[in-house]
């Protein structure tokens, strides 16, 4: 038996559309770094309180001028909190959890990663607009999950110049 002509056209169209989607995703991933945070680094959650970076997490400026923020998610808050960063400056977030899985989502942006105990999530994000943003935990982490909110203020400081 044969496949109906219109159905064949439809199938080629659908197949073509899928290929186009994949090509766009590949090109933006390769050229504009539109790809998921996929950092692989482990950390011991049992001794996180003594950890040099996450024990007392603080915003730091690396020798090359990059801004790095280690974030510890812990029932039911983010540390450090509140944060202040300059606009138009790439900020590298390094996120882990002291207990259960949390989420780290800067509301209104696509800065979004999981905070998983034992692992470090890392991604770089540049705020294009000054203002105050909420950081919401978007993974259920216990009875006060909804109230786990941090703040990040993006200032008009001349951060772009470093």
């Amino acid at each position, binding site marked *: *038996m044969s*496949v*109906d002509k*219109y*159905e064949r056209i*439809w*199938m080629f169209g*659908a*197949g073509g*559309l*899928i290929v186009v*989607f*994949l090509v766009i*995703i*590949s090109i933006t*991933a390769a050229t504009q770094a*539109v*790809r*998921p945070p*996929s*950092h*692989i680094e*482990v*950390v011991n*959650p*049992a001794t996180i309180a003594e950890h040099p970076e996450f024990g007392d997490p603080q915003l730091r400026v690396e020798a090359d001028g990059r801004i790095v923020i280690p974030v510890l998610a812990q*029932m039911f808050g983010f540390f450090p909190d509140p944060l202040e960063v300059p606009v138009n400056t790439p900020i590298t977030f390094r996120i882990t959890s002291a*207990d*259960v*899985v949390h*989420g780290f*989502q800067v*509301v*209104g942006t*696509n*800065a*979004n*990663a*999981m905070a*998983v*105990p*034992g*692992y*470090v*999530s*890392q991604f770089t994000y540049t705020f294009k607009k000054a203002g105050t943003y*909420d950081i*919401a935990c*978007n*993974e*259920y*982490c*216990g*009875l*006060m*999950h*909804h*109230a*786990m*909110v941090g703040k990040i203020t993006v200032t008009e400081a001349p951060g772009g110049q470093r």
Partner: protein
Amino acid sequence: MSGTGAVIGGTPQARLAATHIAVAVTAFAVAACMGVLQGLSIADFEFPMRSEQLYYISVTAHGVLMALVFTTFFIMGLGYALTQAQLGRLVGLKTAWLGFWVALGGTVTAAYTILTGQSTVLYTFYPPMQAHPAFYIGATLLVVGSWLWGGVVIASYRSWKKDYPDTPVPMATHGILATIIVWYLATAGVAMEMLLQLIPWSLGWVETIDPIIARTLFWWFGHPLVYFWLMPAYVLWYTVMPRIAGGRLFSDKLARMVFILFVILSTPVGFHHQFTDPGISAGWKFAHTITTFAILFPSFVTAFTVIASLEVAGRLKGAKGLFDWIGTLPWKDPFFLAMALAMLSFAFGGFGGAINAAYGMNSMVHNTAWIMGHFHVTLGTTSALTFMGATYWLMPRLLGRQLALPGLARLQPWLWFIGMGIFSTSFHIAGLRGLPRRVYSASLAGEQGGAWADLAQAGAIGGIVLFLSALCFVAVVLGTWLGGKRIEAPAFEFAVPLEPVTEKGLWDRLGFWTIVGIVLVILAYAYPLITLWMTPRFGSPPFQPF
């Protein structure tokens, strides 16, 4: 074709199928009550007994009962009914009942620990949040029961094949067998998570657990779970819906191809749920993205074939114009109406799915209310509304009773469609604006929510309409079951293909495709899991913050 047009009402096989449907509807009814309360809570409507604890218990119960219990029991019942109707046999009726009791026992055990507040871990149960051991054991038993169901259907197929060695298996059974293969491939992942990680850890035999390995095994199961819900809906759209409409199945061969594509593609895709997880390399996330987009293809084909089959129905009734055939369809038939509205919802749901799988959009919507909106149009409408409609079709055929309260049965799909339209649209938009999913209150810590408070309220109104629809559904089921007029059970009749497949072809080689499916799962998961396993890592101790 053998078995087409069989009457099975009143037989022990029909009783088996009907008992499964009864459990499914019970789970649905309990879960629907919890759903409406959650909608009100998110929107900050006060009601007596509203509390964080009750909210998160009810999210857990709603998820487990809807996504795992309602669906699994319904699909088991449907699978038995279709197999008996098309193949004229169920081999291993005792095993089937054993499977039923194992699954029910597991469900009741898990549900008890949830409702008593000992397992408020949501239906994704991500460690290191830890539930009561009986929750994990109960959920595992539910799966074991469903494995026995799969075994009975496969044994029935093998016995039938001996009698009809050269006949291609009838279409509906082909789809159910493909569903069972997907289910075995999928549940292998969650079984490993349960047996190697969660159960020993919850019993205290091991102290720590690796959350990323657990999440990976969970999503090995979690995505094909979606196809486990969807494929039986497709079976009904392909084989029953055109029949009710008076049409023909437009393409038998392509329908078979669609089910086989699901067998091979539905499992090696799970990392699209873990795009924002650490510990998994970008390359493997990309590999799963390719398969994720590939699996859109069979759904595109389904859209064409099913709609073309319905057009045939309209043409046979004399429709001549481009669109007037739509008006000739049996919109007054509750079964047809439910299916048609479910399909329409899937058009939106499918586009949403493609958006979720694209990297940039995924980071925008990951774990926001968008996701909740998304799976309520897909699982919550495409599958659930199809299953509700199918219940209207099955009950007279299994119980020998006429559908009671037909007016309510005709109203119910509309209410569901409208309620879900309001609910899902509101939460899609709220999610884009940043409302996280699974929150007790849309105002979060108290001062947030300006951007989405009104949307959460609209969502709650949608939830109330959905609840009314659920009440109608339960009323029709109870009315039919207990008081429906006794009739001669109608026959199970299936759509006749325009061009029936008369010889076994490539798409009928189920054993071969199962092997292809297994190979793809191994390719997709073996390397990332083994690398994770070999990396020195730190486990997590348990937490019970509920």
